[in-house]
Structures are given as C-alpha cells and as structure tokens.
C-alpha cells in the first residue's frame, strides 16, 4: 500500500468530502441517506483531526519558550530591589538637601 504524505491524505479527504456534499440527500432512499450522513460525519471528523494534529505539532515549539520568559522575572526583581535601595538613599539625600539649604542661605 502506497504511503501518503499528510497533505496528500488531506487532499483525498477533501475530495471525498466534496463528492459526498454534491449528492442530493433528498433523492436517496432512507438507508442510503443514513449511510451518506455517516460517511460525511466520518470524513469531516478525520479532516478536523488532521488539522488539529498540525496544531498539536507546535506543542514542542511552545515548551522551551515558557521557562525562557519566566527567567525574566528575576531580572525584573533586580530592578525592584534596586528601587528599594534607591528609596533608602533618597531619605539620606533628603536630609542632605535640608542641610545644603541651610548652608546656601549662609553663603
């Protein structure tokens, strides 16, 4: 049995779907109507599964990205830590400013 690529298999399913869709269901006897509906259902579901598998194939590309981005949390924390230190220095500067104001008034 010849091997088909995913795209070839998909093309064949799509072709089969179009052929079945062209059939006027109202002109068929009841058993054939049910067979047509079941065939349409199965082909439709197979096509959807193939499309979903293509999305699933991206999973492995997603996986390494999440930890990479989470590493940036530590970098942002460094900035926050520095801000805390700057705030402490700011208090010292404030006191200095008051002293300088006094000196400047004497000059």
């Amino acid at each position, binding site marked *: 049995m010849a091997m088909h690529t995913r795209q070839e298999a998909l093309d064949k399913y799509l072709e089969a779907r179009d052929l079945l869709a062209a059939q006027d269901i109202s002109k068929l006897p009841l058993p054939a109507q049910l067979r047509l509906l079941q065939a349409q259902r199965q082909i439709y579901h197979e096509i959807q599964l193939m499309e*979903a598998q293509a999305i699933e194939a991206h999973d492995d590309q997603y996986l390494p990205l999440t930890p990479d981005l989470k590493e940036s949390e530590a970098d942002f924390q460094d900035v926050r830590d520095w801000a805390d230190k700057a705030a402490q220095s700011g208090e010292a500067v404030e006191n200095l400013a008051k002293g300088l104001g006094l000196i400047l008034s004497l000059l």
Partner: protein
Amino acid sequence: MKNLTGNVVILICLLLTLSACTTGPSKQVKSDIRTFASSMRIVTNAFAEQMRATEAAHQAALKENTFLQFDLGGNPPVNETGLFSYREYAVRNSLIDALQAYAHNLEEVFLNAEEESIALISEEFEEIDAELLDLSHGLGDRQKTALIGSLEGLSKVAFAAFANTEVGNIVQKNHPTVERAALLLYLDLGSPEDVDDNCPTEDVFQSLKISKRQIPLCRGGLRSIHSRANSEQLKTLRQRLQLLPKLKHSDEDREEVIDRLYKTRKAGKLLDKAMAQTQQVLIKLITAHRDLRTQYAAEISAASVKPAAGVLPSWFGTAEKGTAINKLAELTNFLPGLVKEGQKLLEN
C-alpha cells in the same frame, strides 16, 4: 569657605547636568510599552476562549449530524474524541501566562519608575539661572527651594535612569522569545483559506514576514477548523430542511430550522472575525516589541558614549569636569557617594 563653595558648585552642576542628560524614556518607548501590555491583555483574554469555541463549534457540527441521523431513525455512534487534549491547552496557557507576567512586569517596573521621573526636577531647574551659580550673588529663596526639591528627587532620577537601562537589557534579551511566542499563537489561529499562492509550505518561521498587517499562511489552524465546523453544521441544517417532511422523530418546523441556520452562520462569522482581530493584536504586539527593541538599542548605544565635557558650564574647572563626568557615568552608584560628600560638607 572657598572649598565649601567649590563643593556646592560641583553638586549643583551635577544636578544641572543630570537634568540635562537624563531625559528619561522617549514618548515612543512609553507608547510601545503600553501598546505591548494592552495587546497582551487582549490576547490573554481571547486566545484560550477562542480555542475552546473552536472545539465547541466542531462538537456542534457533529451533534447536528447525530441529531439528523437519529431523527431519520438511525443510530449513529457518538464516540468521537475531542480535537484538543489537555496538554495542548496547557502548553499554550502556560506560555500566555508567562507572556502576560512579562508584559505586566515591563509596564509596572518601567512606567511606575517613569511616572516619578525627572520631569519635575527638570522643570525646577529651569527656575535656576546659571549665572546665579556664581555664589557671590547668592541664591534666591525660590531657587533654593527648587534646588532642595530637586535634591529630594535625586533617587527618583537615578532610578529612572537605572530602570531605563535595565529594562532595555531585558527587552533585548527576551525579544526573540516574545516574537516567536506571538508568531506561534498567530500560526495556531491560522487561516480559513490559503492567504496567497505563495503560502509557506515548509518551516513557516524561515519565511515568515509581516506584510500588510498579515502573515501569509496556508489554510490551517483554529480558523480553518472552525470555518469547516461551521460549514459542516450549516450543510447538515440544509439537509434537515430538505428532509423535514420525512422526519418522523422531530417536532422542529421549517421556521425554527431556518432560524437556527441564520444564527449558526452569524455566530460563525463573529467568531472568525474575533480570531482575525486577535491575530491583528498579535501583530501589533510583535511590532510594539520590535520597536521597543530598536529604541532601546539606540538608547543603550547612546548611553555607552561618555557625556561630553561640553555639557558642563565653561566656568567649570577641568579637574571638576572629570569628577562630574565620572560620577555621571556611574549614575546608578553615585547616590551613596553624594550623600557622603554632603555629610562631610555639613560637618565642615
């Protein structure tokens, strides 16, 4: 006293130079960060929901077929599995959460710092006439108040400068990951049709280019799955309409079926439009982060050049210029030194 005056002059000039050099982030950077963060919030709210809605549309198409078969007296199997596993939702949601946290940090750390940055200090220094820095004239009360206010804002100045540089480094470092993540989400949303004849068939990341606010893709992804699900349900509803007089197990009349048909079509169009909008937001997000990287690359490059001596007043001595420039170059570390210097000054 002369030494004291000299030190005060150095401090004042340092502050003046700071107010001139540390202009803070450009409006474009601020705008890019806000665009990036707001885009990410939209993607966070939309993507998982649209993935679930796609699965739901697929299940609705299967149900429509199942009900028609039952109404015709058939007994169809109803054992089809779902399209997406828990893992597929989980890997995407984890990445979206990480992107959202990154965007939140970027906005919070940078914009919070920026809000308290040096707009105030610059305005206050405009009140000081450089000629008055010849201290034999003394400073007026207004200038003294401005100077003190400015000194109190020094930590904020230094933080804004530090945050600017550090956030720039973070943006540079994470750009490839952010762009790839956004492209993967775009690709997962996909296209209901081949966008053009040259849609990429190999590794899309090799040839992926943003063009005219879209990325050329082959048919595929959530939009394709959803579009097919919607068409399938509509087709089955039309078959139901055709077979309506023969259906023994249905009490639905023609008007009700037609009504459902219109509603299904409308819901399909709305969801596809929403997914297309999410893709537009992803492009906006990528573009904002690209712009941000470019802006920061320029700013970091400019910051690596030492301040020219010319930025200091001409009456500033050569030795003092050297000291001041060195201090400016070590902006993030200068505060403790400044405090120490000031304390010595006060002790004298």
